[in-house]
């Protein structure tokens, strides 16, 4: 199988960057998209060129490190999938595949397709935890948690932090990411004590990091590999109001 990659190359954060074309032969349908890029990189090495920088780690859709904009979609043409789960069978012989890094002011490009997502870590830092020290826990079954409550928390907790929601959002809003974490913890009895502080500080950090505001285009929930519902954002808004009144 032969395709043409149009890939964003950018030496460093200050470099301007541009799309470069690469015609690649010898691909198979069974290859994952990242394996196709690996193959291209091997060709580049043999051609004495610098390899393309892109991110990945687990390659099974859970670590959240991979993530590029492929043919106009975050993580490629399918809904709810990571880049590493995309396979070349989703493309046709002779296709042109445009590959760009995540674009957002809060995700500055480091090199080629690699961006800096540490803004997410700093949002987490502002309260995505329950302040209990190791050793301070009561018996696990001491607080029964209704299955529905636990399931809802799990739905939100499934976020892998890949940043596709920000990347696909026209406003580069991190509302889906932030709300998922808030709802996971605030929805559990263990997270109750710090609920108001958590919601107000995490959303405040989201603002400081320069993410935009949510206008409910709904693109994020379509691109989210874990299919996290946009309703989480509405719930976060409710929690924010609640924290204003009671917090």
């Amino acid at each position: 199988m032969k395709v043409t990659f149009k890939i964003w190359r950018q030496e460093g954060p200050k470099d301007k960057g541009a799309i470069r074309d690469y015609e690649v032969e010898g691909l198979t349908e069974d290859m994952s998209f990242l394996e196709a890029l690996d193959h291209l990189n091997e060709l580049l090495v043999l051609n004495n060129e610098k390899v393309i920088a892109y991110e990945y780690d687990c390659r099974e859709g859970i670590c959240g490190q991979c993530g590029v904009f492929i043919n106009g979609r975050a993580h490629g043409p399918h809904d709810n999938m990571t880049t590493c789960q995309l396979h070349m069978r989703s493309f046709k012989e002779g296709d042109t595949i445009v590959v760009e890094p995540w674009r957002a002011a809060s995700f500055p490009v480091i090199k080629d397709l690699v961006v800096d997502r540490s803004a997410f870590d700093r949002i987490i830092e502002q309260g995505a935890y329950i302040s209990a020290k190791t050793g301070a826990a009561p018996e696990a079954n001491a607080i029964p948690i209704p299955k529905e409550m636990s399931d809802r928390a799990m739905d939100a907790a499934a976020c892998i932090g890949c940043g596709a929601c920000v990347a696909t959002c026209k406003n580069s809003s991190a509302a889906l990411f932030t709300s998922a974490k808030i709802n996971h913890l605030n929805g559990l009895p263990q997270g109750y004590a710090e609920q108001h502080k958590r919601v107000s500080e995490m959303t405040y950090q989201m603002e400081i990091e320069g993410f935009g505001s949510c206008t409910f285009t709904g693109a994020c929930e379509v691109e989210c590999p874990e299919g996290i519902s946009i309703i989480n954002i509405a719930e976060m808004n409710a929690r924010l109001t609640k924290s204003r009144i009671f917090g």
Partner: protein
Amino acid sequence: MKLDAKVPEGRLEDKWRNYQVQSQLINPANKKKLNVIVVGSGLAGAGAASTLAELGYDVKCFCYQDSARRAHSVAAQGGINAAKNYQHDGDSVWRMFHDTLKGGDFRSREANTYRLAELSAPLIDHYVQQGVPFAREYGGTLVNRSFGGVQVQRTFYARGQTGQQLLMAAYAQLYKMVRAKKVEMFPRSEMLDLVVINGNAKGIVVRDLITGELKRYAADAVVLATGGYSRVFRLSTLAIGCNGSALWKAHKKGAFFAAPSFTQIHPTALPQSSEAQSKLTLMSESLRNDGRIWVPKQQADTRKANDIPEHERDYYLERRYPSFGNLAPRDIASRAAKERIDAGYGVGRLKNAVYLDFRHAIEKFGIQTIKDRYGNLFAMYKKITGIDAYQEPMQISPAAHFSMGGLWVDYELMTTIPGLYAVGECNFSDHGANRLGANSLLQASVDGYFILPNTINNYLANALREDHPTTEHPAFEEAENEVRLSINRVLAVNGTKTVDHFHRELGKIMWQECAMSRTKEGLQKAIEQIKTVRDAFWNDVKVTGSSNELNTELEKALRLADFIELGILMCTDALQRDESCGAHFREEFQTADGEAVRVDEDYSYVSAWEYNAGDFKLHKEALAFEYIQLSVRSYK
């Protein structure tokens, strides 16, 4: 040098308590003055870093990924074991200890394994308090399921994302301490050497993966939590970045490497489909709870799975191991699959897989229950293969997975270099020759949260009286220069083949000769072949780009250089062990019906290898079993 495991006195049940009572304590005001480096941010690393910080130490934590949350603990799917006995099915700490030791084919230390089981219950309490959304019954209590090698239900899980959920808790707790300014986090930083001053571990040399800059960090103790090294096989269930370099550097600086050849081959991964493949995706072992494994009774059967009638299916695990059936331990299930595939009964396009069938479970429990239990695994299977496993069976195949081997550690988790600790998968402590499913998250967590923070003080209490190391020390200078030299050496080769080329070569040799079954001749041949690969690598590898930029090829090359040397040690270790135990199956040592033959009188020891200028010297830590009767591991 004599290996001293420092196992405390007393009855098995009292050892850990006795240890804690007797170990030295450090005044809170003094803890502030002590620095600890933690390399790795998975469950073991993040757990250790956050807990040490909570205790008052100043911690620096390093990881090569862009965020601590990517550590490969994230990928464990099925669950975490704990002897809670919530199911009232006869579980206990003792039973769990026994299962783990037996599962590991009696090749681990009793005291360590018992402690693992003992601390499992409080660990579940800990994670629940940290907000992990474990599966619940309608009444609000926690659910359990079974896992391989065990006849009770003691596995806790959060859908198919248990590892991810635990890691999110650990990562969040870590960042809580980052916010409290007690932990300084260094993502995108790879440790490239250990610094040893006067025989004690006192710091590391790190490469900033963005700028390429080499940086020195000094500390009063160094904790390695760098995970497993099964990427030595290239194709494995591990993340692409997982590597053995930190271990290898520590090994070269004097830390003994224990049982390197004990690497687990996981029975339920997705089969390889092409040469270009970079990774074998794991399907959780928990699927074996409800899925039945089979191959056609007829060789090279070309019919579709659903067209093969019931009586023409060979449920070979149920046939060979009636009492454990599909839940036989991993090493046994993997080997049984290999046996069938090698005999020509394999299925799939490359005839390298077996079926994992849910038809009966769906008939019995209904599709919704199966969806609740494994929904995301089925979804993942569909994403990767394009096949709907609710309609036809999955195709699975064995793949390199966990490394039981690692740096030799004593009861305190300290390596043979004073002040250097190894926690989680990177040490050799609890699993023996084979790890039971859902014990990996457990060991990493228990090491990081509960054990290390209670043992490191015993060493640091003395460090308090010494001068704090500084990065100006000549040992740092020397280590940094060595790292710089090796980087320049790789870049200078400028040959004709890519790093991946050599990794594929290494992987093929390792998979062929040092994986599920091994022979003396094969291993001897493999060592020679790997040496050839090593020479070819240093003569003909090509890495483009420079050392002072983000250069993924350079990273890969440095890791591979260490993997190659590690590969030699693994084969050397497998060669010296003239017996079959757990994951280590030597074809010369088997019964007539193909079961492993252990040789307890000669090999009841942990092999611990000392690095000696390119060569390896074997030390033996004898395993004394005071509380358990060694038996032939039978799952029939």
